[in-house]
């Protein structure tokens, strides 16, 4: 089964030593798990005052690889538009819970409008780590109601919800907002307590993407889950690669 991973990263995590943090190590893990490519983001860029300081070397490393490098934007810092012009990204990722950026902030709305205009998908990050395991820094919880309102405010923006968990995906308002749209997707990286097959039945496989959150989470765990859960082969194929190809085909 061919797989594309929309939620993988390279770089350092400030709170623990990651055993597999470089791009070559990601390639090795992906290769052994049958992952052919995907959307890769830079961990360093989350934590740097100027995310472009992380993205500059990262885009150079990822160039020419089978991966689409994703640009990180902190909407709270000035003049991120300039960086979007500079990197010409095929996707942009934000971390509102890390950057203290409410989902109804004017800065995020401005970014959403620009991405909509340029037809660049937005990767909206919920959780990166379970709240009971945070250390020193405690990001805000993922905001299901705020996400629903954001999706409704930007209906033409292709949006990938990454790291959303069962409580958010089961939230009635967010559920409705996702179902209303045919350009909203979510990944299966973070879900631990509910069988992803439940979400296939709720939303349809056409809204789901394979994400592993490597190197923070274990790729083999999500890969094995995708391979073994009780869904049809067509649904499995859509989650593993079909939806990704449809979204990011050149």
């Amino acid at each position, binding site marked *: 089964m061919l797989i594309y991973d929309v939620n993988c990263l390279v770089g350092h995590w400030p709170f*623990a*030593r*990651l*055993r*597999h943090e470089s791009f070559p190590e990601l390639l090795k893990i992906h290769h052994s798990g049958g992952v052919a490519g995907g959307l890769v983001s830079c961990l360093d860029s989350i934590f740097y005052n100027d995310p472009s300081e992380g993205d500059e070397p990262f885009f150079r490393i990822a160039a020419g690889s089978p991966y689409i490098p994703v640009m990180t934007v902190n909407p709270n810092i000035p003049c991120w538009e300039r960086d979007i012009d500079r990197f010409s990204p095929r996707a942009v990722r934000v971390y509102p819970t890390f950057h203290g950026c409410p989902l109804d902030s004017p800065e995020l709305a401005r970014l959403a409008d620009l991405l909509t205009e340029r037809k660049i998908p937005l990767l909206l990050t919920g959780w990166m*780590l*379970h*709240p*009971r*395991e*945070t*250390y020193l820094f*405690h990001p805000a919880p993922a905001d299901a109601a705020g996400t629903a309102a954001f999706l409704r405010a930007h209906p033409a923006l292709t949006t990938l919800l990454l790291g959303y968990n069962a409580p958010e995906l089961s939230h009635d308002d967010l559920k409705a907002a996702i179902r209303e749209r045919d350009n909203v997707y979510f990944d299966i990286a973070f879900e*631990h*307590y*509910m*069988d*992803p097959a439940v979400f296939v039945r709720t939303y349809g496989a056409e809204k789901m993407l394979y994400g592993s959150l*490597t*190197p*923070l*989470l*274990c*790729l*083999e*765990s*999500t*890969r*094995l*889950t995708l*391979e*073994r*859960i009780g869904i049809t082969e067509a649904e499995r194929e859509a989650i593993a690669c079909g939806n990704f190809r449809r979204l990011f085909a050149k």
Partner: protein
Amino acid sequence: MNLIDMHTHLWLGRVDACRAAILRAAGLYGYDRVYVSTLRSAVPDEEEIDACNAATAAFMRDEPSLVRGWCYLNPRNANWKDVLERGLNDGMTGVKLWVATYCDDPLVDPIAEYCIERRLPVLIHALDKTVGQGTYESKGMNVRRLALRYPSLRIIMAHMGGNEYTGIRAVADCPNVMVDLCGVIYRADALEYAVERLGAGRILYGTDLSSDTPFWRNIGKVNALPIPQYDKERIFWRNAADYGL
């Protein structure tokens, strides 16, 4: 693949659903044996403890080739010894302590001494959380204090202490403490960290299973470890078998 899941639960109030989920998982993952304890409230009275252990015993009777039981005790209850002896008569393997007291509370001492005398293992819930810590919920340091007080007590620290950085560090030099990997399903490197600090010989496979949660994730974490296949087998089942489970 051989597999011994030494940490699963029935929950009073939905025992039938939990039993069904455990049986489905046993078929799906190919379990050889499943160790079950039944829980409900944090500080159960004598009546509730009896109901919990009766549910476990009934499951053991109904599935004798698959299900083994932990005898759930509340150290605050005066009748713990009678409860434990009844559980042993029903064929239970050892003691389960949850969150009624810290595990190093002096109330646990007589239970520890009883278990040492009969070489009974004690499965201790320990979960160090940044948010939502229970009132009497043990952490790795509680387990450490108990282990040092009773160096011949056979302890299994559940969930690797909930946070490997505090849990594993706390018991690394306590050879009478094994750990189980269930409940620690988040960080990719947690299990590798545990293997580095404890060795594969002190880690047991478990799931905390009580519903249809896809536990391929736990299996995947062991499969992904950069250790020889034999050591993976130790985690999946050999350690448990060697431990007498």
